[in-house]
Protein backbone atom coordinates (compact mmCIF):
# COMPACT_ATOMS: atom_id res chain seq x y z
CA UNK A 1 0.00 0.00 0.00
CA UNK A 2 1.06 3.57 -0.59
CA UNK A 3 2.40 5.09 2.58
CA UNK A 4 1.95 8.69 3.65
CA UNK A 5 5.60 9.32 2.75
CA UNK A 6 5.10 7.83 -0.72
CA UNK A 7 2.09 10.08 -1.17
CA UNK A 8 4.03 13.15 -0.09
CA UNK A 9 6.83 12.35 -2.54
CA UNK A 10 4.34 11.79 -5.35
CA UNK A 11 2.64 15.13 -4.66
CA UNK A 12 6.04 16.84 -4.74
CA UNK A 13 6.84 15.19 -8.05
CA UNK A 14 3.48 16.11 -9.53
CA UNK A 15 3.97 19.72 -8.45
CA UNK A 16 7.21 19.77 -10.45
CA UNK A 17 5.43 18.27 -13.46
CA UNK A 18 3.98 20.25 -16.34
CA UNK A 19 0.46 18.98 -15.66
CA UNK A 20 -1.09 20.73 -18.67
CA UNK A 21 1.43 19.04 -20.94
CA UNK A 22 0.58 15.59 -19.54
CA UNK A 23 -3.16 16.21 -19.89
CA UNK A 24 -2.68 17.43 -23.45
CA UNK A 25 -0.62 14.29 -24.17
CA UNK A 26 -3.38 12.08 -22.75
CA UNK A 27 -6.07 13.79 -24.78
CA UNK A 28 -3.97 13.58 -27.95
CA UNK A 29 -2.92 9.95 -27.49
CA UNK A 30 -4.31 7.61 -30.13
CA UNK A 31 -2.39 4.34 -29.84
CA UNK A 32 -3.19 1.72 -27.23
CA UNK A 33 -0.52 -0.99 -27.00
CA UNK A 34 -1.89 -4.54 -26.66
CA UNK A 35 -5.18 -3.45 -28.20
CA UNK A 36 -6.53 -6.98 -28.65
CA UNK A 37 -5.63 -7.86 -25.04
CA UNK A 38 -7.61 -4.87 -23.75
CA UNK A 39 -10.49 -5.47 -26.12
CA UNK A 40 -10.78 -9.09 -24.96
CA UNK A 41 -10.71 -8.00 -21.34
CA UNK A 42 -12.98 -4.95 -21.43
CA UNK A 43 -14.66 -4.74 -24.82
CA UNK A 44 -17.86 -6.63 -24.00
CA UNK A 45 -18.85 -4.48 -21.01
CA UNK A 46 -18.15 -1.37 -23.07
CA UNK A 47 -20.39 -2.78 -25.82
CA UNK A 48 -17.53 -2.64 -28.31
CA UNK A 49 -17.98 -5.19 -31.10
CA UNK A 50 -14.44 -5.10 -32.47
CA UNK A 51 -10.99 -3.91 -31.37
CA UNK A 52 -11.36 -0.90 -33.68
CA UNK A 53 -14.75 -0.11 -32.18
CA UNK A 54 -13.19 -0.31 -28.71
CA UNK A 55 -10.41 2.04 -29.82
CA UNK A 56 -12.92 4.47 -31.33
CA UNK A 57 -14.80 4.54 -28.05
CA UNK A 58 -11.53 5.31 -26.26
CA UNK A 59 -10.88 8.22 -28.62
CA UNK A 60 -14.37 9.61 -28.04
CA UNK A 61 -13.82 9.23 -24.31
CA UNK A 62 -10.62 11.28 -24.50
CA UNK A 63 -12.49 14.07 -26.27
CA UNK A 64 -15.02 14.50 -23.46
CA UNK A 65 -14.71 17.99 -21.98
CA UNK A 66 -15.77 16.85 -18.51
CA UNK A 67 -13.04 14.30 -17.82
CA UNK A 68 -11.56 14.30 -14.34
CA UNK A 69 -7.86 13.54 -13.92
CA UNK A 70 -6.15 11.55 -11.18
CA UNK A 71 -2.65 10.19 -10.67
CA UNK A 72 -0.88 7.63 -8.54
CA UNK A 73 2.35 5.65 -8.54
CA UNK A 74 2.15 2.08 -9.79
CA UNK A 75 4.29 -0.88 -10.70
CA UNK A 76 7.99 -0.21 -10.81
CA UNK A 77 7.46 3.43 -9.84
CA UNK A 78 5.68 4.63 -12.95
CA UNK A 79 3.20 7.45 -12.48
CA UNK A 80 -0.15 6.29 -13.76
CA UNK A 81 -2.83 8.79 -14.74
CA UNK A 82 -6.55 8.13 -14.90
CA UNK A 83 -8.79 10.18 -17.19
CA UNK A 84 -12.22 9.51 -15.77
CA UNK A 85 -15.75 10.08 -17.04
CA UNK A 86 -17.32 9.92 -13.60
CA UNK A 87 -20.91 9.83 -14.86
CA UNK A 88 -20.31 6.69 -16.91
CA UNK A 89 -17.44 5.28 -14.76
CA UNK A 90 -15.23 4.99 -17.85
CA UNK A 91 -11.50 5.28 -17.35
CA UNK A 92 -8.61 5.75 -19.74
CA UNK A 93 -5.36 4.86 -17.99
CA UNK A 94 -2.11 6.51 -19.11
CA UNK A 95 1.45 5.73 -18.11
CA UNK A 96 3.20 9.11 -17.86
CA UNK A 97 6.68 7.57 -17.66
CA UNK A 98 6.47 5.94 -21.06
CA UNK A 99 3.92 8.50 -22.31
CA UNK A 100 1.47 5.88 -23.54
CA UNK A 101 -2.13 4.94 -23.01
CA UNK A 102 -2.20 1.91 -20.73
CA UNK A 103 -5.81 0.69 -20.66
CA UNK A 104 -9.43 1.68 -21.12
CA UNK A 105 -12.24 0.14 -19.10
CA UNK A 106 -15.40 0.56 -17.13
CA UNK A 107 -14.79 0.71 -13.40
CA UNK A 108 -17.13 -1.39 -11.28
CA UNK A 109 -17.29 1.40 -8.71
CA UNK A 110 -15.06 4.39 -9.27
CA UNK A 111 -15.78 5.96 -5.87
CA UNK A 112 -14.38 2.87 -4.18
CA UNK A 113 -11.53 2.63 -6.66
CA UNK A 114 -10.64 6.24 -5.91
CA UNK A 115 -10.41 5.59 -2.18
CA UNK A 116 -8.66 2.24 -2.37
CA UNK A 117 -6.26 3.26 -5.10
CA UNK A 118 -5.32 6.39 -3.18
CA UNK A 119 -5.49 8.52 -6.28
CA UNK A 120 -4.48 12.16 -6.23
CA UNK A 121 -6.80 14.47 -8.11
CA UNK A 122 -5.48 17.00 -10.59
CA UNK A 123 -7.85 19.95 -10.87
CA UNK A 124 -8.07 23.01 -13.06
CA UNK A 125 -8.03 26.20 -11.05
CA UNK A 126 -10.23 28.78 -12.73
CA UNK A 127 -8.78 31.36 -10.38
CA UNK A 128 -5.15 30.71 -11.35
CA UNK A 129 -5.84 29.47 -14.88
CA UNK A 130 -3.79 26.30 -14.62
CA UNK A 131 -3.88 22.67 -13.52
CA UNK A 132 -2.85 21.92 -9.98
CA UNK A 133 -2.55 19.06 -7.50
CA UNK A 134 -5.47 18.82 -5.10
CA UNK A 135 -4.31 17.92 -1.60
Amino acid at each position, binding site marked *: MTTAEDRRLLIEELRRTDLARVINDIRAARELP*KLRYHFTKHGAVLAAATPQDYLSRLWRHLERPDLEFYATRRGQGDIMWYAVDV*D*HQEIAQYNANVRRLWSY*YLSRDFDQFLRLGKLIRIVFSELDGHWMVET
Partner: protein
Amino acid sequence: MKHEWTVEQDIATYRMRVRGIPDDYNWETDVLEALIGRSKIAEIWDQLTAGQQAEVRRTDDALLQQHERVAEMLPSPAPHDRSHWWWFLHEGPQVREEAQAA
Protein backbone atom coordinates in the same frame (compact mmCIF):
# COMPACT_ATOMS: atom_id res chain seq x y z
CA MET B 1 -25.71 7.63 -16.45
CA LYS B 2 -23.90 4.76 -14.77
CA HIS B 3 -23.75 1.42 -16.50
CA GLU B 4 -26.27 -1.14 -15.24
CA TRP B 5 -24.15 -4.22 -14.66
CA THR B 6 -25.70 -7.60 -15.35
CA VAL B 7 -24.87 -10.65 -13.25
CA GLU B 8 -23.10 -12.16 -16.25
CA GLN B 9 -20.97 -9.03 -16.71
CA ASP B 10 -20.08 -8.98 -13.03
CA ILE B 11 -18.94 -12.59 -13.12
CA ALA B 12 -17.05 -12.25 -16.39
CA THR B 13 -15.33 -9.05 -15.30
CA TYR B 14 -14.33 -10.57 -11.96
CA ARG B 15 -12.84 -13.53 -13.83
CA MET B 16 -10.97 -11.28 -16.27
CA ARG B 17 -9.61 -9.12 -13.47
CA VAL B 18 -8.36 -12.11 -11.49
CA ARG B 19 -6.75 -13.55 -14.62
CA GLY B 20 -4.91 -10.26 -15.04
CA ILE B 21 -3.34 -10.28 -11.57
CA PRO B 22 -0.34 -12.52 -12.45
CA ASP B 23 0.39 -10.24 -15.40
CA ASP B 24 2.83 -7.46 -14.52
CA TYR B 25 1.18 -5.11 -17.00
CA ASN B 26 -1.59 -3.60 -14.85
CA TRP B 27 -1.95 -5.87 -11.86
CA GLU B 28 -2.66 -3.19 -9.23
CA THR B 29 -5.74 -2.01 -11.09
CA ASP B 30 -6.79 -5.63 -11.63
CA VAL B 31 -6.50 -6.36 -7.90
CA LEU B 32 -8.57 -3.34 -6.87
CA GLU B 33 -11.26 -3.90 -9.49
CA ALA B 34 -11.38 -7.64 -8.70
CA LEU B 35 -11.93 -7.01 -4.98
CA ILE B 36 -14.53 -4.31 -5.63
CA GLY B 37 -16.25 -6.56 -8.16
CA ARG B 38 -16.22 -9.54 -5.80
CA SER B 39 -18.06 -7.49 -3.18
CA LYS B 40 -20.66 -6.51 -5.77
CA ILE B 41 -21.18 -10.21 -6.56
CA ALA B 42 -21.55 -10.96 -2.84
CA GLU B 43 -24.37 -8.41 -2.67
CA ILE B 44 -26.37 -10.34 -5.29
CA TRP B 45 -25.16 -13.84 -4.38
CA ASP B 46 -28.67 -15.23 -3.91
CA GLN B 47 -29.61 -14.16 -7.43
CA LEU B 48 -26.86 -16.30 -8.96
CA THR B 49 -27.65 -19.74 -10.34
CA ALA B 50 -25.83 -22.72 -8.88
CA GLY B 51 -23.67 -22.78 -12.00
CA GLN B 52 -22.80 -19.10 -11.64
CA GLN B 53 -21.96 -19.58 -7.96
CA ALA B 54 -19.67 -22.47 -8.91
CA GLU B 55 -17.98 -20.29 -11.52
CA VAL B 56 -17.38 -17.52 -8.98
CA ARG B 57 -15.94 -20.06 -6.53
CA ARG B 58 -13.52 -21.24 -9.20
CA THR B 59 -12.44 -17.64 -9.72
CA ASP B 60 -12.14 -17.30 -5.94
CA ASP B 61 -9.73 -20.24 -6.02
CA ALA B 62 -7.63 -18.40 -8.60
CA LEU B 63 -7.74 -15.25 -6.46
CA LEU B 64 -6.53 -17.22 -3.45
CA GLN B 65 -3.58 -18.47 -5.46
CA GLN B 66 -2.60 -14.84 -5.99
CA HIS B 67 -2.97 -13.88 -2.33
CA GLU B 68 0.60 -12.62 -1.99
CA ARG B 69 0.20 -10.16 -4.83
CA VAL B 70 -3.27 -9.16 -3.65
CA ALA B 71 -1.80 -8.50 -0.21
CA GLU B 72 0.41 -5.79 -1.67
CA MET B 73 -2.74 -3.68 -2.20
CA LEU B 74 -4.11 -4.36 1.27
CA PRO B 75 -5.19 -3.67 3.95
CA SER B 76 -8.10 -1.67 2.67
CA PRO B 77 -8.55 1.73 4.29
CA ALA B 78 -12.32 1.11 4.27
CA PRO B 79 -14.04 -1.21 6.78
CA HIS B 80 -15.29 -4.55 5.47
CA ASP B 81 -17.25 -7.41 6.95
CA ARG B 82 -15.14 -10.54 7.57
CA SER B 83 -17.56 -12.49 5.38
CA HIS B 84 -16.00 -10.54 2.51
CA TRP B 85 -12.79 -12.47 3.10
CA TRP B 86 -11.08 -11.18 -0.07
CA TRP B 87 -10.42 -7.86 1.68
CA PHE B 88 -8.36 -9.72 4.31
CA LEU B 89 -6.06 -11.75 2.06
CA HIS B 90 -3.03 -9.94 3.48
CA GLU B 91 -3.63 -12.13 6.56
CA GLY B 92 -3.23 -15.26 4.44
CA PRO B 93 -5.31 -17.58 2.27
CA GLN B 94 -6.97 -19.18 5.32
CA VAL B 95 -9.30 -16.19 5.63
CA ARG B 96 -11.78 -17.77 3.23
CA GLU B 97 -12.15 -20.90 5.34
CA GLU B 98 -12.35 -18.82 8.50
CA ALA B 99 -15.13 -16.72 6.99
CA GLN B 100 -17.04 -19.80 5.86
CA ALA B 101 -16.68 -21.40 9.29
CA ALA B 102 -17.93 -18.33 11.13
